[in-house]
């Protein structure tokens, strides 16, 4: 892949964590979880700059299992959508 192609498809763009596929990893840019759980989401390791790996989706497609700081945490897709990541 040429440098131009990489620029044309910028990898640095923020995207929702819920859009990643199992095995893909992303670095947290922002945590926009509504309501009173925002602090707790961060405390579970979703801090800015942390790399998160999508492990799998539950048998019915939702929630998703994420690997954060060595721990496995499950979030629903709707909630994971509030976590913006940059693919790494």
């Amino acid at each position, binding site marked *: 892949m040429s440098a131009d192609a990489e620029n044309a498809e910028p990898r640095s763009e923020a995207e929702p964590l819920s859009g990643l596929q199992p095995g893909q990893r992303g670095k947290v840019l922002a945590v926009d979880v509504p309501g009173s759980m925002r*602090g707790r989401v961060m405390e579970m*390791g979703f801090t800015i700059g942390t790399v998160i790996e999508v492990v799998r989706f539950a048998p019915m497609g939702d929630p998703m299992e994420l690997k954060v700081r060595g721990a496995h945490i499950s979030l629903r897709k709707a909630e994971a959508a509030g976590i913006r990541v940059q693919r790494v």
Partner: protein
Amino acid sequence: MADPAQIFRRIAIAGNPNTGKSTIFNLLTGMRQKVGNYPGVTVEKKTGRFFGSHGEAMELLDLPGSYSLQVRSPDEAVSRDVLLGRVPGTPRPDAIIAVLDASNLDRHLYLVAQFLELDIPVIVALNMVDVAEKRGLTIDLLALKNSLGVPVIPMVASRGQGLIELKQALSRATLHVSECKAQLPIVLEREVAALSRTLKCHAGSVRPEAMLLLSLEDERLAAEVNGNPTLLAEVHAARERLRLSGLDPIAAPVDARYAWVSEVCASVVHRRGEDAHGLTFSDHVDQILTHKLWGWVAFVAMMALMFVCIFIVAQAPMDWIRDGMGALAKWAGAHMPEGDLRSLVVDGVIGGVGNVVVFLPQILILFFFLGLLEDSGYMARAAFIMDRMMSRVGLHGKSFVPLLSSFACAIPGIMATRTIENRNDRFVTILVAPLMSCSARLPVYAIMIALLMPASGVWSQAGVMLCMYLLGILAAFVMAGLLKKTLLRSETPMLLLELPPYRAPVVRGIVQRMWERAVVFIRRAGTVILALSIILWALLHYPKPATPEPTQSEILSHSIGGRMGHAIEPVIAPLGYDWKIGIGLVASFAAREVFVSTMGQIYNIEDAKEDNEDLRTQMRDERRADGTPVFTPLVCLSIMVFYVLAMQCISTVAIVRRETNSWRWPLFQIAYMTVLAWVGAFVVYQGGKLLGFQ
């Protein structure tokens, strides 16, 4: 037991869930444990005594597992409040044992960072060092001790390793408060200091209190400083200043602590080889247990295995208990003079209590399985798999565990709702939990199924039983959905669920909890059920009819219980019940299993000949005035459906009252469940008759 005044040190043991905290608690205290409650909440307060290496008496307090002092659930609130010295009757501990999972320091050190801010001496119990070792992690203990500034004890609690060293560390003459802490941004530090000056509380906990208030979300802050508008205004002003200086008051302390954690881990944890992304044992297991197809197969298989064990494995010990009770009744009958006292002892006490104690083996097996699922880590996977379905009715994957526990007994189920963060979701779960068929219904189902299909094999009987369980589940789901849309409206709650690594469960710990349950059950049989049995016996025997030499059924019909049964007959006749079943319904309002002992007492009275015929045969032979059998298949089904849906348990009412802190919810629960039960039984009986069944 040592005099409380002579306790050398009060220690709290705390940590994230699934770190082996309870195992260490059990190791230290053995059987010297006491279970009580904190004032105002029903979170269990588990304390124990042990002796240090020089014989000093120590008191150990087992705090509920928590992820943070920034609490999200009633369970976590207790841990925080104890550590801040806020709980009346529980002194602020002299030291904290922080239990960490050595294979996941990255995450578990976060809570330690918060403990170090508390100005209480901390001792780190670094548990499961063997797992870390197997995963290729080497932890530099000396470096960890130096970066934390506290003693670090490597442990393998499941094998008892590290216990002596831990005791030695706890026995030191003085324990120091660590100087090491996560460095907060200076502006935040300044605000914390300013707010600390205005707070009035325990001197040592002023700073952490201020820290907690500053970084609380608005929704929770209002509840926390309830009734103190000045403080609320001050916190808001401080936050505004922080925001102006470019700091997010919620994120800043979290970021600061994790930055510190990462720094510590970088110098302490060394990975061997390249297997940083290698799959662990848990990953391999999860590839099957959370697989799109095999995940379901395993889930259904596990539930099926559990119920089959409850019915087949429990059979033999149940027969022993039944035979033993029978022999006891015979012996008492033979050694006592004829009369009311003999009847009270044989029919009332032995019969009443015996018919309930028989179910102990089934209850123990159920608790054993639940313990196994919980401790192995599978319960979280079940919540993960079930969340999609639960969220359809607006519930949480986390509601699955309380509901599953309610199959054993609604009381531990309702207590398990304390891990649910949102009040409305917690209440919905509490309100529907008793619809799950608890073990107290087993006796009713068992006898009704035996009457319904006496000749069928174990499997088809288990099939009918399964249908009853499914009916309860269905009712719970429908009701949860309705409640979420009406009385307890709220958004579908957020799921934030940890899937802990799989572990071999410590059977000793599970057996200990089973033992605790057994004691509770037997105590209940010896008190509540015994009392009810005696009252019931009296209700069924008095007042005596005036006629000389009354027949047994005249006695029954003339008694208060008989009259009550007659009184409610018009209400229950459409369900297919006669007045004798009515007595059973009235009597089992306090506890479902009493139905069986009531039936036992009723038919013992009726059955003048003192033979050994068991209750089932007596009930099968029971006839109405017109000679048709009372317990037709349809009546049996109708009774079972009634018991699936009805709220008949004084203990549950009491616990719901305590957990919801009002009489409103338990009364509402009784009302809706009774209506549901009547309608359900009516539909089964009348519908069945319309379809031409008997």
